[in-house]
């Protein structure tokens, strides 16, 4: 088999001591940076950029890739333990990860998420190995109209996240969309809601919103009770970092399914880990026999997004390596690095510099292994965070949040944004407005608006363009199903109950 031979060849590249060492450094760096709220893989890779000029190109790329998926491993640590996601891709890990911690199951949550990330990464790497080219070609069939329908489908996931109070959920969603209108309108060049502040011209970065809503908002909320509880009111046994067989049985299918979903989303340029994880979560909630248990700390609700976001980070490297198209902020920096070496990514890279292309692909297998080896013992250490008194822990979270947010744009304006969204997050919690719809629409809003308007410019204003391809029609049907599903499943349940009572 040619693919196996290529993999073996790649492994000989990876096995060089210098590559193993730098890859391990990348995994550790990624995990640590991923944990810090606001500091994501893109920042990590950019920080590394000047350093990599001294390395060989394959070493540089392997290290950067390691930072990328390492951050996916790390991002969920703070989601699970503190309800503060490290970056966008780790938001969905809060939904069931933090409730698990509240139930005293932090150890198994950390273990499950690490194993789910590992399997997600592995599955994605296997698909990468065998199907990179056809998958990349398929992704090209997504034009603006297909993207728009995909974004709408992703947004429809909120329907399943807000069954309890649809009106509040819808308000939250609209508020998120409003936030994304700030900045230069990409299609007309008009400044919108910037109030003469040049920093706002590029819009409000969604990571600032997330860290504000979750990180600072969580701190504000806990500030109310900090006097009474004094210490962080969590019970934990500091047990072994592992999970039960029962938990494993519940998770394995969601992990396998959502790895593939995450991978496909990751391959599409511009989509990425956040959308992948959100979709994975809502998919599993819909498929579950007990959807109402999601959000109360079920392991599959954590495993699904974790597998998906790691798979997405690996999928995102496909268009970059095979076509020279960067699919995310992180891969854009990696592409920039390749070009500084005078290398041109694309099909020719596989022919002219196979040591780089196959070295990177093989490193995905080894790197994921290194990540899980690092992350399991690290989890044992991190879980001790729960015994840190709130008086110490919360100021620390605030400091890290400000620091992390500054690394995104090096802008002081983001500090104000962080505080504003901190208050927004606090009041949303207080008045029980669901947060997830807003966050999802902040992530999706501007690309959704842009792809809608790009489509209409292509079609000269005709809406027919959204029905032009099989992909978009399939996505429209999925969207309709997804919105109807809650109503549908309720009816079925009610019927079941009534037939039972009739008997």
């Amino acid at each position, binding site marked *: 088999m040619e693919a196996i031979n290529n993999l073996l060849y790649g492994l000989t590249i990876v096995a060089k001591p210098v590559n193993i060492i730098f890859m391990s450094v990348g995994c550790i760096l990624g995990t640590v940076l991923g944990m810090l709220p606001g500091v994501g893989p893109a920042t990590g890779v*950019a*920080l590394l*950029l*000047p350093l990599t000029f001294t390395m060989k190109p394959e070493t540089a790329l392997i290290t950067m890739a390691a930072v990328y998926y390492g951050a996916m491993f790390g991002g969920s640590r703070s989601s699970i333990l503190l309800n503060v996601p490290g970056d966008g891709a780790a938001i969905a890990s809060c939904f069931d990860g933090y409730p698990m911690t509240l139930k005293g199951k932090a150890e198994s949550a950390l273990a499950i998420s690490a194993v789910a990330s590992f399997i997600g990464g592995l599955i994605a790497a296997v698909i990468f190995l065998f199907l990179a080219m056809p998958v990349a070609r398929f*992704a*090209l*069939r*997504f*034009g*603006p109209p297909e993207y728009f329908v995909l974004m709408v489908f992703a947004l429809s996931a909120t329907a399943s996240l807000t069954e309890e109070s649809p009106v509040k959920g819808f308000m939250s969603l609209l508020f998120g969309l409003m936030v994304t209108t700030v900045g*230069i*309108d*990409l*299609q*007309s*060049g008009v*400044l919108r809601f910037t109030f003469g502040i*040049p*920093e706002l*011209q*590029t819009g409000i970065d969604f990571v600032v919103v997330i860290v504000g809503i979750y990180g600072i908002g969580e701190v504000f909320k806990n500030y109310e009770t900090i006097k009474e509880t004094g210490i962080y009111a969590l019970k934990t046994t500091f047990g072994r970092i592992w999970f039960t067989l029962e938990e494993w049985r519940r998770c394995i299918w969601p992990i396998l399914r959502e790895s593939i979903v995450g991978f496909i989303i990751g391959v599409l*340029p*511009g989509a990425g880990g956040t959308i992948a994880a959100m979709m994975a979560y809502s998919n599993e909630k819909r498929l579950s026999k007990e959807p109402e248990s999601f959000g109360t700390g079920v392991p599959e609700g954590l495993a699904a997004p974790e597998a998906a976001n790691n798979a997405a980070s690996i999928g995102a490297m496909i*268009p970059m390596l095979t*076509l*020279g*198209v*960067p*699919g*995310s*902020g992180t*891969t*854009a*920096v990696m*592409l*920039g*690095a390749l*070009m*500084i*070496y*005078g290398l*041109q*990514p*694309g*099909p*020719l*890279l596989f022919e002219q510099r196979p040591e780089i292309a196959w070295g990177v692909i093989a490193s995905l297998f080894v790197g994921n292994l290194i990540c899980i080896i690092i992350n399991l013992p690290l989890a044992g250490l991190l879980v001790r965070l729960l015994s840190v008194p709130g008086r110490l822990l919360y100021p620390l979270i605030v400091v890290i949040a400000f620091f992390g947010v500054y690394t995104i*744009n*090096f*802008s002081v304006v983001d500090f104000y944004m962080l505080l504003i969204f901190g208050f927004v997050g606090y009041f949303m919690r207080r008045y029980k407005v669901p947060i997830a719809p807003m966050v999802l629409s902040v992530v999706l809003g501007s*690309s959704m608006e*842009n792809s809608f308007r*790009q489509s209409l*410019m*292509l079609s*000269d204003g005709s809406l027919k363009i959204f029905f032009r391809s099989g992909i978009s029609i399939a996505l429209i049907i999925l969207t309709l199903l997804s919105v109807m599903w809650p109503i549908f499943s309720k009816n079925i349940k009610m019927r079941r109950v009534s037939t039972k009572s009739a008997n």
Partner: protein
Amino acid sequence: MRGKAVWIVGIMAFVLFISGMAIAQQDYPSKPFEFIAPAGPGGGWDTTIRMVARVLQEEKLVPVPMPVINKPGGGGGVALAYLQQRKGDPYTVAVYSPPLLLINLTGQTKLSFKDTTPIARLISDYGAFAVPKNSPYQSISEVMEALKKDPKSVKVGGTSSPGSMDHVQFLIAAKAAGIIDLDKIVYIAFQEGQQLAALLGGHIDLLSTGLAETQGPMMSGDIKVLAISRPEPYDEGPFANVPTLRQGGVDAEFINWRGLFGPPEMPNYAVKYLEEKLAQLEKTQLWDEICNTNGWDKSFLPAEEFKAFLAKTNEEYKEVLKAIGFYKGE
């Protein structure tokens, strides 16, 4: 009495100030520079200024450190506002290119190149106009003919919003080709690499972008570059066989120049010093190598000539932006 004391203190302060300036001039540079990339890490501005700092350091041309600071935002407008706070500072240096003029002309910022001190132009990069491999268009003049018949027939894509560089470089070519309704040409803005995916997938008809972005997919045969905006064709390298706009029958060129700028009222001795160091940098072998890997042309212009070049270029952009109704000046 009181008035006299004030006078004496005033004169003493003035003398100190003058001598202080003289000292500053002699010892210059005596502390680290602050090099500013007006965008995030990894892009063209960031790469350029980091490479300049690297060569000045490694060739021991400048004895003090030159750390690079990223000040992204507002298409360079944030860094431009920051330069205003550093008025007269001899240690602040930023890199800029055509967007410096464009963001002012389109009204994104009130500040213009006149609110900086041009130090020197360093390099030139160029634009490329690419189509998918199965495109019906074989040359740039065919594209222009189609646009003359129906300005909406060719959907042009690029990075960043209308009125920005990718858009303007195509319009300059279209104008030279004799197209009158420049404002009717459909320009679709993309982000995060989606423009290339949109071209490869055949969702747009033509991509107007920088040379570097097209090189990989052109060499693999996935796209065809119809023309480049360089005044002369390349003798060697991957773009050697690609016609220039002029060779394609369109009498136009577009230079993506990059140069260094100081804050407004940067002292003359600082400008002279940096101008001279950059002229030396231009002659090093290391700079040659860097320009080669990045596909840049060396195009050094000293401060005075650079200033004249900027004024002339500004007028040229203004005309095109007026034609599409994007000019927001007086």
